[in-house]
């Protein structure tokens, strides 16, 4: 069985699966249950400044969207940072860390953007023996209205400034948690790096309304007939998170900055994908909230099996896909594929036909007896038929070898060439 022990910016854990700062990590009871189940680490739910605790709503905090059989696909929450007294949290963190020395325990922090607040909170957590801090610059709801959370994460200068304070007043490893509620994730990541962050973690939740009640006409979750936007998470946000992770991992200015991958990680496979895209570990919340802590056992067995089968170490996996994550202009425009329908597997539902005929390129023929075949002279290889086909691997894309005739264009498949040298590109330059 592959060794899954991880060392993320000097923080060791028996596996790379951490629970993200969120409701599941709000108190000792939950965190100990998580450690008993096998989680490698937790980021304790965000602590605020000393003083009267945060107040949460007493109506619904979560909204959701579902797939078939009420499979939860996306969750949205309007819960704020911890609403328990600071001293209670600190005492519990200390107790848990003492008892579970082999597990990672990072404290998430969110205080106003003033130096003294950060200095004070860092001092307050000093003797908890926690392994590090994570700066919550991500939450898009509630706290952002008070100038914290994503309100900070959306301004690179603030990110840099606060990160500097943290590095100045603490020797703990510092992870900066980024908000995806920005036009580009790169400036915030660069700012964190400039401020001295040891790592970034992303993504925090996305501003969202899951649904509108069509009787009361209130957004959901509804509090007394009104709704406010929440933070979206769960399987639905994974594609957004993977892209942002990859953007940071590949950019020349942020390359090498350790990343803790977050956003819809539900299975070992999701975790492996985040790691291949550059994450050094992953953080999970919604999957645990949906299925309970036991899912980590599947993540452990699945990732081990995968690494064994690939004969890779965990470190071999990290960033493995990053060199293949390129900009569109560098894609090979002479790469030609055609859809192929396996007639033995086809169940004749005709979804490929409807999709292609109604919404794409009229490249699938349908016979009287419902045999569906691809017209190579019309197929642009868009892959829509593959995606809508209910049968796994029934429709596949066949790659035309160099020199073969593309019946659609009437041209032979050429060697690698991309947009930068394409004759239709006004700014094209000659191939070197």
């Amino acid at each position, binding site marked *: 069985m592959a060794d899954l022990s991880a060392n993320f910016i000097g923080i060791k854990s028996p596996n790379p699966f951490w629970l993200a700062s969120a409701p599941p990590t709000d108190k000792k009871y939950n965190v100990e249950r998580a450690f008993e189940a096998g989680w490698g680490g937790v980021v304790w739910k965000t602590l605020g400044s000393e003083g009267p605790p945060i107040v949460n709503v007493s109506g619904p905090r979560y909204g959701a969207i579902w797939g078939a059989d*009420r499979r939860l696909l996306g969750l949205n929450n309007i819960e704020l940072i911890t609403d328990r007294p600071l001293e209670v949290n600190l005492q519990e963190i200390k107790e848990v860390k003492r008892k579970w020395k082999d597990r990672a325990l990072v404290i998430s922090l969110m205080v106003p953007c003033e130096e003294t607040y950060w200095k004070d909170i860092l001092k307050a957590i000093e003797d908890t023996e926690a392994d590090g801090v994570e700066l919550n610059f991500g939450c898009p709801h509630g706290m952002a209205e008070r100038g914290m959370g994503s309100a900070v994460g959306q301004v690179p200068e603030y990110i840099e400034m606060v990160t500097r304070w943290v590095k100045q007043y603490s020797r703990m490893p510092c992870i900066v948690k980024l908000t995806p509620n920005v036009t580009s994730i790169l400036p915030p990541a660069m700012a964190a790096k400039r401020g001295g962050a040891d790592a970034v973690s992303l993504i925090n939740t996305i501003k969202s309304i899951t649904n509108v009640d069509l009787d009361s006409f209130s957004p959901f979750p509804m509090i007394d007939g009104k709704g406010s936007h929440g933070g979206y998470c769960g399987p639905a946000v994974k594609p957004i998170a993977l892209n942002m992770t990859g953007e940071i991992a590949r950019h020349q200015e942020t390359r090498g900055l350790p990343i803790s991958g977050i956003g819809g990680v539900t299975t070992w496979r999701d975790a492996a994908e985040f790691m291949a895209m550059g994450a050094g570990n992953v953080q999970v919340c919604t999957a645990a909230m949906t299925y309970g802590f036991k899912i980590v056992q599947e993540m452990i067995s699945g990732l081990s099996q995968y690494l064994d089968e690939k004969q890779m170490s965990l470190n071999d996996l990290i960033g493995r896909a990053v060199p293949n994550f390129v900009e569109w202009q560098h894609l090979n425009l002479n790469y030609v594929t055609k859809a192929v329908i396996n007639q033995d597997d086809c169940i004749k*539902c005709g979804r490929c036909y409807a999709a292609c005929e109604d919404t794409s390129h009229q490249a699938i023929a349908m016979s009287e007896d419902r045999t569906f075949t691809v017209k190579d002279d019309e197929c642009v290889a868009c892959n829509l038929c593959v995606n809508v086909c209910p049968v796994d691997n029934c429709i596949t894309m066949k790659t035309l070898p160099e020199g073969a005739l593309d019946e659609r264009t009437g041209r032979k498949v050429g060697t690698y060439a991309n947009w930068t040298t394409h004759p239709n590109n006004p700014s094209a330059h000659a191939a070197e």
Partner: protein
Amino acid sequence: MRPMTNSPLTPGIVPGRLPAAAYASNFGDHEPALDAHEARVAADRCYFCHDAPCITACPTDIDIPLFIRQIATGTPEAAAQTIWSQNILGGMCARVCPTETLCEQACVRETAEGKPVEIGRLQRFATDHAMAKGKQPFKRAARTGKRVAVVGAGPAGLACAHRLAVHGHDVVVLERRAKAGGLNEYGIASYKAAGGFAAREVEWLLEIGGIEVRTGVELGRDVTLDQLKAEYDAVFLGIGLAGVNALRAAGEELEGVRNAVDFIAELRQSTDLSKLPVGRDVVVIGGGMTAVDAAVQSKLLGAENVTIVYRRGQDKMSASGHEQDHAVQTGVRIIHNAAPVRVIGNGKAEAVEFAYTQDGPGGLKLSSETFTLKADQVFKAIGQTLAGQPKDLPVDGGKLAGAQATVWVGGDCAAGGEDLTVTAVAEGRDAAEAIHARLTGA
């Protein structure tokens, strides 16, 4: 009063073989309705196929993917409307259709994984839900002043009458029996339409207005086709198959030998099943739905041994595989490839002697090898035939052949199509459209 002491072992044809409570559970809903969540899950399995094979397989061409999507999106009323716009008896068809040989056989998930979308149960979910709201979903068009006579208040006649009423014509339905509904009311197993569903559906259907049902009126006895042709602008005949094939075996006249359809009709109309007599050893001869319905219900009434004997192989049985399985699960034995030679008994049936058969290119041959089954009750379920039809109508293959001038035909009495409720509905509906086109010159 002496307590009821009959049991499954009591010899002869007697009532009350079971404890009183057993009847309600034995004859309750055979296949329970889906609840809202089950329906949502079942509906989610539909792939919403292009030009869906299930629609093609449905004799009434219900837009199945559309109604299932309407269930999946929380609008079963709209789903029911989609169903009823093609099949006004969609509620009954959801219960009695052999879906495994129609829509569900064509379902691509049957091809993919051997588990079709549960179309029949979903159809029932939608129609039950919408019927519970109690409103007839169709409105009549302005009255045309045209009058149409519909003979037979079975599925074909009712579908025809409803569609004619929708188009604004005035309809008079003539029914020889005491109640409307035809085989839905008299001819199918009780547990398939529990809770008086057939009668409720007829009542609901008639809410459209413009349809007058006259029961106890028989064509040929109380009224002639010529009279109807003279009095009405058009006539639709949906008279079903009133005749029953004879056994043509010695002893057929013995006491205890009976037509399965009569037994089923009596059972359906019984208000107290504990008073309905049934044999200890019941033999049902035939291989169709009627045979299965008679056999299973005999078993459910407490018969000790119930055997269906069919003269050909299992592959030739017209009862669906689902029906056969149900019979076997209920405890009915099915013997194939055997034909009755004679019913044995002195005044009353005591046994039936069968000869094994061989089904070859030259037809069915009886072998010399025979066996005998104990039988104090014998049900004949070897097919129904056209009977009582007006003499001057052309007959093709034992059935009425198509429309003649102002007379249209449909349902089991008409040539073409299988003898199924759903086929009858399609034929009645289509005849109504043809009549409407003729009457309005459309």
